[in-house]
């Protein structure tokens, strides 16, 4: 405003003698507080039921206190161990003490399981040795341990224990990118036959891109049609987009199973029309193809709706003007119409990509072997292998990716324009 260049001779005041500027500022502040106060209940609710639980879950990916808590003496005794040769009697004695206690409160199995994630086979080494050690009244323990299992004579076993001797570590994040520490503490790749997560992240990206591209390819023409038809027809056609949007995800996934399975509707039609023989039924489901087909159909409305709302605002006169200036139809479309749809293309593609990358249900039901995505592996480590730290680390990486895309979306499109039909 003008205040920087033109100072008023006398400061304006309100009726009660306050300077106008202060008074306005106070009103402004009160309005801000009032606006904020309205948001606070939801904010608190989401913090408790959503943000905090996710944060707590991600915390597991770096917080790994089990070994420190349950083998305290061993970890302390290993502090000065240089890692070149097997440790001396004091370390064995400390481990024996921890094991006896672990046998008593039945916690030794937890340690064994945790260590087994890092080094296969250690589990039974620990539980069996603990059973024997519990019977020993006193040392020397080193002999007894080496006698119980030759794994105690290997540096790697001790290095594994020492590595988990930090309450906070990055072991799980390394594992999520197919890397690990070797006995010297260097980061190295996992052996080739155990490299899995990098390819899975790659596949997740690839499938999401493919789904996004398919959605764009299929969504563009029908959005165009919806936007250029008279209102009565386009409203009718819109129902065909909105009905799938409103139909349960599981219902749609079920339908795809019904349609695509090898004794399913589509294969029956193919056989009936003679395109393929009875023996030549095509495997369309329980693989990547089936997953991409189903996900494309499920996510297509999220592409069509933003595209349509952008196309609706493009005046047909642009095209007419271009054509009357001599541009062929196709060129007019490509040079004049298409660039105007870019905001819709961007918004739709980003939204579809964000939703696709974290998909779980559809790949789990129709993905088979080659259609599994990273979410399915997170679920696997949550529910079957019980390696919750690794699940949290994989989830952390996925979440960072999604949040980056979300930030981009917010920047380019604005979250409040998330189209809901």
């Amino acid at each position, binding site marked *: 405003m003008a205040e920087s260049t033109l100072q008023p001779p006398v400061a304006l005041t309100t009726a009660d003698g306050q300077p106008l500027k202060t008074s306005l500022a106070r009103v402004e502040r009160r309005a801000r507080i009032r606006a904020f106060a309205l948001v606070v209940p939801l904010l608190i609710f989401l913090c408790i039921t959503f943000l905090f639980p996710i944060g707590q879950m991600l915390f597991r990916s770096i917080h790994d206190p089990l070994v420190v808590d349950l083998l305290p003496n061993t970890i302390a005794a290993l502090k000065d161990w240089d890692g070149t040769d097997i440790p001396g009697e004091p370390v064995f004695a400390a481990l024996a003490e921890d094991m006896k206690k672990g046998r008593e409160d*039945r916690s030794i199995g937890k340690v064994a399981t945790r260590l087994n994630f890092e080094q296969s086979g250690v589990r039974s080494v620990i539980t069996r040795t603990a059973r024997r050690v519990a019977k020993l009244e006193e040392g020397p323990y080193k002999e007894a341990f080496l006698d119980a299992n030759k794994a105690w004579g290997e540096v790697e076993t001790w290095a594994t224990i020492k590595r988990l001797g930090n309450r906070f570590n990055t072991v799980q994040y390394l594992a999520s990118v197919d890397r690990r520490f070797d006995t010297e503490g260097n980061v190295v790749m996992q052996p080739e036959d*155990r490299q899995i997560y990098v390819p899975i992240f790659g596949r997740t990206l690839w499938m999401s891109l493919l789904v996004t591209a398919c959605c764009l390819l299929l969504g563009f023409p029908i959005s165009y049609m919806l936007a250029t038809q008279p209102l009565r027809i386009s409203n009718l056609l819109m129902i065909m987009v909105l009905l799938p949007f409103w139909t349960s995800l599981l219902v749609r996934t079920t339908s795809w199973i019904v349609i695509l399975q090898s004794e399913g509707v589509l294969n029956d039609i193919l056989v009936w029309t003679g395109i393929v023989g009875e023996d030549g039924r095509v495997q369309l489901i329980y693989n990547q193809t089936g997953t991409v087909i189903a996900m494309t159909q499920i996510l297509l409305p999220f592409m069509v709706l933003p595209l349509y709302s952008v196309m609706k605002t493009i005046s047909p006169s642009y095209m007419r003007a271009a054509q009357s200036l001599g541009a062929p139809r196709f060129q007019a479309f490509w040079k004049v119409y298409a660039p105007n749809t870019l905001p819709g293309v961007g918004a739709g593609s980003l939204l579809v990509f964000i939703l696709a990358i974290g998909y779980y249900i559809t790949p789990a039901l129709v993905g088979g072997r080659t259609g599994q995505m990273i979410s399915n592996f997170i679920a696997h480590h949550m529910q079957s292998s019980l390696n919750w730290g690794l699940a949290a680390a994989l989830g952390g990486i996925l979440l960072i990716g999604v949040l980056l895309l979300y930030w981009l979306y917010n920047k380019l499109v604005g979250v409040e324009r998330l189209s809901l039909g």
Partner: protein
Amino acid sequence: MKNLLKSTTVARAAVAAFGIVSAQAADPLTVVSWGGAYTKSQVEAYHKPYTEMTGVEIVSADYNGGLAEVKAQVEAGNVTWDLVDVELSDAVRGCDEGLLEPIDKSILPDAPDGTPAADDFLPGTLTDCAVSTIVWSTVYAYDATKFPGDKPATMADFFDTEGFPGKRGMRKTPKANLEFALIADGVPADEVYDVLATPEGIDRAFAKLDSIKDDVVWWEAGAQPPQMLADGEVVMTTAYNGRLFNAQTVENKPFVIVWDGQVWDLDLWVIPQGAPNKEEALKFIAFSTDTQRLADQAAWISYGPTRKSSVPLISTHAESGVEMMPHMPTAPDNFKNALQNDFEFWADYQDELNERFNAWLAQ
């Protein structure tokens, strides 16, 4: 009708929202098992008579195996499951990790002839935290209509996609599949785990699996393989023998079981540490594992009882009247080339092998 629905809905909502359920006097017992025909056999043989006798209601829930839920409940100190039906490796691992209640075996009733329970159960079927009920087995079966000529007869035939073309179904886990692969590759059943304990042995098993990888449809829940076989999705599939029996006799499917190379295992009752109705669960275990009850279950599904005294009591199938004994995994004819799942091996190596298996699947 509408009003009724409304009022019960509101009442239920109130109950749910304020947690009144847990304050009720006689808590129902939550018993978790594998679903389908198997859960049905337990409901018929154990749950119904127990409820009739004691008046305690039993809520039966399904799961797909594993200790995840038990671990989550125990670690959080909020256990809602009273009794879980688990595989042997999980019973041992859960006990080691302090997730399961130790069970005093003196609660188990003696056999009718007075043999103490400890001697009546087959060796190795009682563990610190678990009481076994059945011997079950993973076998493979084929659809007879798909093979009019030569019929698959050995484990090697399952891996022979040239001689017996068509899709195969296999469980999406390395467990049992690696064993099958080695048996098919010519390793005698009693040497399988010695071979698997070496890196070369594992490579060999994966190489064998690799030979049919493109022809395999993977299943996860026990009810899937008979369905896949019935739908024609696969021409042969590995499956739990009881499910196959059910499809054969109750649903009259033209399935044939190949017992060669079967991998057998136990199912056991365990109680999660801190279960809400531990005492009742113990009573239920004692009730359901007595001689008659175990034999009763065998009238519903073709899994063998783990008490010796139950075996002579096995008669016919409750629904179809089929003689049950020839369908048991432990029947002499079926048991010729059989392998017991080695729980120690799997407890030790399942993390590594799962990871390798997943990596292999993803390639």
